[in-house]
């Protein structure tokens, strides 16, 4: 199939349109503005809605309305904007509305800077908004995945009636790579629960209020059951040379690309190093870490944050193996060499 050589940010927008997304509501923020620019260009061309909202708060609420009306709808922003969207995300989850949110992460806290970081992990994986809810979070590491995981995000969102997020950074967004786009989706299944402004759908209610304590408790149990189902069925991760590995490197997004090269170089030096890359950050690929911890010597987590995902690696492996950590922050992307040096320092072969 013919491929397109395309930036990750553009790939998201084209994939969304091919996946049947009908509306994009956004608010400019670097480095996510490129997504909005592409959406502003392409959504109207195929008769879909693009609107620049008055704020991220409004944009996510417009998505709430569009999703309630049964559309595939999306928004894109970057870290400070995602903080503002948290109200809406909680409501979307509470009312069980599907949608896709793109977060092209930048440096924080506060205004920070516009360079890539991975410091939104906690805010998007561990809550961020109020209440018991889960955001399905997918972490692409290249342009092809910006496309494929956009499709996946819409599918999972619809399947579970739950908001889904594409978590990336400016590095993955700016990088151009070949992308094979799938054919446009012809028709999506009707959403019986949606507000379609028809006699048949008139009794539908989109709501997150449960006044009665027991009812709300039950509601939460139901949501938990859904979360469990997602955890059981939708985990995605990639393993690279883990079979005989003594040390497992762990990283997501752009870091996983860098780690792949680190693994190759370490292997060339005779170090038995492998890589696990979570693709779904929630549901987190817990099992593989539990499994690996039985046969490896140590984990080595690399993040562009203070250390956020590392907590999940430790939980998943029951802290049963030393879990080393290397990080860069402030928009600095760690180089292959600096990680390799740190890996060498911590590497010890598993005693047999």
């Amino acid at each position, binding site marked *: 199939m013919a491929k397109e050589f395309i930036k990750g940010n553009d790939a998201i927008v084209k994939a969304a349109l091919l996946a049947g997304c*009908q509306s994009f509501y956004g608010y400019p923020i670097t480095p996510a503005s490129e997504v909005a620019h592409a959406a502003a260009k392409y959504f109207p061309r195929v008769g879909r809605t693009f609107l620049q909202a*008055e704020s991220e708060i*409004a944009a996510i609420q417009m998505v*709430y*309305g569009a999703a309630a009306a049964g559309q595939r709808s999306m928004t894109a922003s970057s870290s400070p904007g995602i903080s503002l969207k948290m109200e809406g995300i909680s409501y979307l989850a509470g009312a069980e509305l599907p949608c896709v949110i793109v977060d092209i992460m930048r440096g924080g806290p506060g205004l920070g800077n516009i360079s890539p970081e991975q410091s939104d992990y906690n805010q998007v994986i561990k809550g961020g908004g109020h209440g018991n809810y889960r955001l399905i979070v997918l972490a692409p590491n290249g342009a092809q995945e910006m496309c494929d995981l956009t499709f996946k995000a819409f599918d999972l969102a619809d399947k579970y009636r739950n908001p889904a997020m594409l978590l990336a950074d400016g590095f993955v967004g700016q990088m151009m790579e070949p992308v094979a786009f799938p054919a446009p989706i012809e028709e999506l299944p009707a959403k019986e629960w949606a507000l379609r402004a028809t006699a048949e759908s008139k009794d539908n209610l989109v709501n997150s209020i449960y006044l009665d304590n027991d009812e709300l408790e039950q509601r939460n149990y139901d949501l938990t059951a859904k979360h469990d189902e997602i955890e059981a069925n939708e985990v995605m991760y990639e393993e690279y040379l883990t079979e005989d590995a003594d040390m497992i490197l762990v990283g997501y997004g752009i870091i996983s690309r*860098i780690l792949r090269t680190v693994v190759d170089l370490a292997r060339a030096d005779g170090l038995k190093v492998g890589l696990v890359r979570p693709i779904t950050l929630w549901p987190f690929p817990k099992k593989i870490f539990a499994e690996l911890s039985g046969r490896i010597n140590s984990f080595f987590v690399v993040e562009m944050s203070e250390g956020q995902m590392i907590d999940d690696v430790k939980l998943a492996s029951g802290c049963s193996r030393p879990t080393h950590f290397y990080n860069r922050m402030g928009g600095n992307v760690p180089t292959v060499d600096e990680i390799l040096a740190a890996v060498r320092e911590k590497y010890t072969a598993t005693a047999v």
Partner: protein
Amino acid sequence: MAKLILQKPKGFYDSFYRKPGDKENTHYCPGCGHGIIHKLIAEAIEDFGIGDRTIMVSPVGCSVFVYYYFNTGNIQVAHGRAPAVATGIKRANPNSIVISYQGDGDLAAIGGNNILQAANRGEHITVFFVNNAIYGMTGGQLAPTTLPGMKTSTTPYGRDIQNEGPPMKVVELLSSLDGPTYLERTAVMSNASIAKTRKAIRKALQCQIDGLGFSMVEMLSACNSGWKVDPKEQYKWMEEMMLPTFPLGVVKDVREEREGWFRETRTMTDEAIKQELDLTMPEPTIFPSELKKGSYHNPSIKLAGFGGQGILSAGAMLANAGMEQALETSWIPSYGPEMRGGTAYCFVNLSNKPIGSPTVTNPDVLMAFNRPSLEKFEAEVKPGGLLMYDSTIIDIEPTRKDIEVLPVPATQIAEDLGNTRMANTVMVGAYIAQTGIMAPAAIDQTLPLALKRKTMVDANKKALAAGVDYVMSR
């Protein structure tokens, strides 16, 4: 509990089945304006026959349970966000009639920007705005519309306009915008005022039905619980306290000037969609090539020079062509502090296996297009790697002995062809000739993708060939 003495309008559910407990009466306090306003809206929905296609947006406030009552599609939303949600619904389904029902805290305080912007966009929705000068639901706190001197839970000594400012006049505020079509303030107290409110509600809905744009009715409404006023005195209180600050009447009505808006829906073929999305790459032709040396395999290439020298597009030429030759490729620009020192660079990877890190500390190949980038990046080249530089522009020579060095008078060659700006393409030609990584025809095939100016394709083909020739005839 307020009794709905008359028969319920059809705009209401026969029985309020979603409401816990009593299914006949509303949850509002006796004498509350919300109940009367609900009834007026329900009657209008019934009379207009729009119940099936109406979607009521329930706010946060005492009217949070609007969805208990209206026999329409219903959605409950976050505090103040109703106009934004209504925007998403209406745009998803232009045939729907979308009603945003909001209190004064909801609309004028927390949702102030949302209503302002929806009104200014001329959003095709109808807003029923219940101004009771207080936060009813949360225990009678100050609202933006609370009257000067009025005691509330959070202004126990009375609203002090030095501290809280004066009451906000919302319809007047919105009337300064060109966006809205119809704005009126009414009161819900005497029979006459209720009759006027009934009429205003209908005009506002008709405005939306006719596709004429944003309509809103602000309704002064009683909240005796919040005001701590005897229900029997509430209308007198409204008359004395509210009317002087909030004059009644139509504030804006430009329905005559507006044209009906009805969005047509489009269906497009797959082919048309792909065309519009610029997804039109033809199946590539693969041109045979032969690497000249094992070390030229799977290169990571750094291209560096001044901004404006076509560094990024030279990278794109290689990456685009590589993709079409079934290689894995990546291209990433790097700006940043280097820009200030006069260099911009990009990384290109060409590989026959998945590409790991798209940038590396020690590239296999460096193409230096100016002196600062040669000075800066020479040391980075991987031992045994290849360094190419524009020997027309760069007046120094590389010093490394452990790498292969290839000077290319790229700017001179480009100048001989009539345009120094094609030095980048000359360099690409020299690179593929030196390494054999791709046939020149492979670059030719994708030149149109890498060049901004499509008129330059033929000239660049010549520049590419000249770069190839330069290496071949060395």
